[in-house]
């Protein structure tokens, strides 16, 4: 049975789409059949970051409205095998997303895929609610600043109360924290919240820390998921994150100025 994973944050601009693109790519690289869905109807971005914007014919809303079938709509990634993109519609708005429609498409996708990654729009309105409603697991993307952390806290509350699992009294949505745009030297100076500060407030397991990096911007503009950028710190951090998601026990990197200090700090404290 396929696992549905929502990538969400509450706040905009924290790296949801970047994370969705790299996470899905990483899963596919490791041999899992993966599809990533853009739920940001009206503000389509995922196709740009995945570099497939010129291949979009039909979109998510077309399938919901039965104007096209799934196979016409799924875009196969040219770089990584097993990876498909389901783009959002740019000409519609979030009202086009219906619970029944989304459920039907997810059920259909579950037949052919191992992982379904839902890239949520910002906010806590319809688009975001639809993206998280059917989720089994959630990657909550946060930046090390107070407003982003508070919005993530809000979205965690919504996951715990308004997802299908919550409504049906099922086991809760499994939560993972992704701390993106982290700059250890600024956290050390106190300009930014530290990893520990964020963990203390949100209280959910840390899946990965993605360092602030120019490569993310460059690769976004080039339409390449940053996980494919060999030698980049952000790419390596995403690669670790995917391995951890799949159950590998890896130490967190890029969280302190000396690249090994985090665990020391974590355990040396007592």
């Amino acid at each position, binding site marked *: 049975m396929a696992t549905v994973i929502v990538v969400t944050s509450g706040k905009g601009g924290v790296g949801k789409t970047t994370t969705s693109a790299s996470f899905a790519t990483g899963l596919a690289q490791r041999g899992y059949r993966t599809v990533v869905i853009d739920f940001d109807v009206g503000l389509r971005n995922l196709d740009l970051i995945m570099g497939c914007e010129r291949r979009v014919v039909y979109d998510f809303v077309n399938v919901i409205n039965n104007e096209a079938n799934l196979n016409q709509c799924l875009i196969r990634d040219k770089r990584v095998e097993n990876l498909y993109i389901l783009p959002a519609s740019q000409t519609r708005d979030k009202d086009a997303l219906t619970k029944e429609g989304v459920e039907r498409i997810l059920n259909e996708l579950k037949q052919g895929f191992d992982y379904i990654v839902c890239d949520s729009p910002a906010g806590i309105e319809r688009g975001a609610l639809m993206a998280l409603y059917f989720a089994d697991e959630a990657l909550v993307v946060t930046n090390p600043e107070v407003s982003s952390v508070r919005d993530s*806290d*809000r979205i*965690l*509350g919504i996951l*715990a109360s308004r997802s299908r699992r919550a409504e049906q009294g099922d086991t809760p949505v499994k939560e993972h924290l992704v701390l993106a745009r982290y700059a250890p030297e600024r956290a050390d100076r106190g300009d930014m919240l530290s990893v520990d500060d964020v963990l203390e*407030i949100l*209280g959910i397991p840390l899946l990965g820390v993605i360092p602030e990096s120019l490569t993310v911007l460059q690769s976004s503009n080039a339409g390449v998921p940053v996980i494919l950028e060999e030698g980049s710190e952000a790419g390596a951090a995403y690669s670790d994150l995917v391995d951890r998601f799949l159950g590998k026990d890896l130490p967190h990197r890029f969280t302190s100025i000396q690249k090994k200090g985090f665990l020391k700090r974590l355990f040396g404290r007592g």
Partner: protein
Amino acid sequence: MLLRSPHLASEETPPFELKGSLFTLTVLHLFQMDRTAIERHLVEKVKQAPSFFNNTPVVIDLEGMTDSLDGLDFNGLYELLRAHGMVPVGLRNGTPIQQAAARLAGLPALPESRANSGAKKPDKPEPALHSRLVNHPVRSGQQIYAPDGDLIVLGAVSAGAEVIADGNIHIYGVLRGRALAGVRGDAEARIFCQSLEAELVSIAGRYRISEQLDPADRSKAVQIHLTEDRLVIEHLTR
């Protein structure tokens, strides 16, 4: 926000207000439905203490009823009691059918007494406390209310979250959001938390915001209560 307290003057005064209150009522334990026997006993009782039976409200209790008849004549009973200076105000215990018959005679069914294990326990009215337990963190934007009792939160209360209780609030994590205890005016209510980083704390309408909290109390395990209408924050010692 649920700041419903007489301390907060509203812009215009409403014509009435609904409030819960506790009364001591006389309970008439009815053992059998023999009208003549009841009347005979009543006359005797009234003779003993005539001033007591002067429009005295009574609750009829059917717990010790030996007649298993469903069709009790509540209208007749009502008239009989009225005639001897008692005003029946409700019914306690009894079968659902008896309760329905009583309701038709204008007698609402009252909840069973809490101390009904021992037959001869004193009928002391006890406040019905229903505490609510929350075993997950209360996240930003969530509001949790415990009506009629205490609220116990095992996790943290995040900034932007609100926990509200008619009684006390116990938080076994960090309190970063708002906590409002005794929202229906109970000045005895208290707030307990493991670490005080609240945006707002309130007891019975008296509140203090984050800015007004003493920095010395910050991040401390505290209890908060009202003394002479003032919020007092005390550190909890281990």
